[in-house]
């Protein structure tokens, strides 16, 4: 292959590919959030003798809160190595449209950390005795919600990437911002369990995702510029 001019889409694909390649070469990045999700949600039934019906009714909350924590903790590493090794500076200095590259970068990260959570969630639902009516809204809700969480968390990561030991600080910054997603996401499952219509809540989740996808990259870019300074 000789020199071949690439369009914007091809450039973005290169960024996505890079993110996936990095994930493949350090499997902990994929496995650890998943394990955290499983272990943390198993902590709740362990911490009290709940009867199964109660457990089932709080299952949506448990799953959503632990998914939120897993996404947040996994995001800690999104820009860290790029920051440490100087790649971030290259990205900021490149003539490419930063907005799209950041969006794609978060997408890539979500594919390897957020999507596996969505896939494994039904299994945890079984463990937590989630009633049958809850699975579909749980999966769809997580599918719409976790990318939003990733985007929001990415802002926090971008702000704290220059600081050592940022784990807890990130949580304190990000958790309050993530509450709407949590409320609607867990609310969808709750509502479905009560046999009420959920379409409205889904469209709210979708709207949040669109909002985050359109605005978060701007905030991320600004935060990165500050952190790299």
């Amino acid at each position, binding site marked *: 292959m000789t020199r071949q001019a690439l369009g914007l889409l091809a450039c973005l694909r290169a960024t996505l590919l890079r993110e996936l390649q990095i994930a493949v070469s350090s*499997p*902990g990045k994929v496995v650890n959030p998943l*394990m955290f999700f499983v272990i943390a949600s198993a902590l709740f*039934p362990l911490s009290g003798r709940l009867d*199964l019906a109660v457990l089932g009714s709080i299952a949506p909350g448990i799953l959503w809160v632990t998914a939120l924590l897993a996404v947040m903790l996994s995001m800690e590493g999104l820009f860290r190595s790029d920051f440490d090794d100087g790649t971030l500076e290259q990205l900021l200095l490149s003539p490419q449209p930063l907005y799209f590259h950041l969006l794609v970068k978060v997408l890539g990260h979500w594919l390897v950390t957020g999507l596996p959570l969505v896939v494994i969630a039904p299994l945890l639902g079984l463990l937590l005795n989630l009633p049958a009516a809850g699975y579909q809204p749980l999966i769809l809700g997580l599918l719409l919600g976790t990318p939003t969480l990733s985007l929001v968390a990415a802002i926090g990561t971008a702000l704290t990437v220059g600081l050592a030991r940022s784990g807890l600080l990130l949580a304190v910054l990000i958790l309050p911002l993530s509450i709407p997603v949590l409320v609607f996401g867990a609310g969808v499952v709750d509502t479905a369990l009560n046999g009420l219509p959920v379409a409205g809540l889904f469209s709210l989740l979708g709207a949040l995702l669109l909002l985050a996808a359109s605005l978060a990259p701007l905030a991320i870019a600004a935060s990165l510029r500050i952190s790299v300074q």
Partner: protein
Amino acid sequence: MMQWLYKLGSPRHFYEMTTGFLPWLAGATFLLLGIGLVWGLGFAPPDYQMGDNFRIIYIHVPTATGAIWIYAMMAAMAAMHLVWNLKVADMVAKSCGIVGTSFCAIALFTGAFWGKPTWGTYWIWDAKLTSFLILLFVYIGVMALRSAFDSETSASKAASVLTLVGVVNLPIIYYAAVWWNTLHQGPSVLGDRDASANPPEIWIPAFFSGFGLIGLLFLIVILHTRNEILYRERRAQWVQELLTREPIHA
């Protein structure tokens, strides 16, 4: 004793020693497994209570028991690695980790699929199942830690420490059983209490498959350890000679 340990601890000696009896072990294992599984899955009569579902026992019980014992073995190896700095012990421990995790997962899944028809639910938070789940988590923690290091030496030492710390946890988890009342089968089907309910046609194949799986366990551990030895000692003279002597089918 120490002399013997060091001899056994030499990767080369381990490799050569196992080369001899590997075929025997493999043969016995597959014979036992074959008899046990064919008999158990194909010919043993259905259980008077559980129907055909009970056949899962031929996999569930040996893997579950194996996963517990294999942790003990892994811990013993970890201790030997830390105290006497035996490299082979660490390689065996690593293999134990992989096999133990798989056994643990298999036992969990077979148990869960067994639970649905018998208890009406895949999962229940009772002491035995929970402690078994925690065992899986501990296994995974050890493997995750091992894979997080770049340097082989640090990885093996760190994993050994964590393995030993995990041991302290096991009896505690076990005694936590006091705080729940368990739904899970005690030592019943194979125990003599209701042996009357289970004709020899059921438990004899169980013994076959049980010992077969134990054999399989050792077989995998040894094979994996041999692989590990070859990889870590790939620069050593004897491995080079071995590799040039034997044709490799890569």
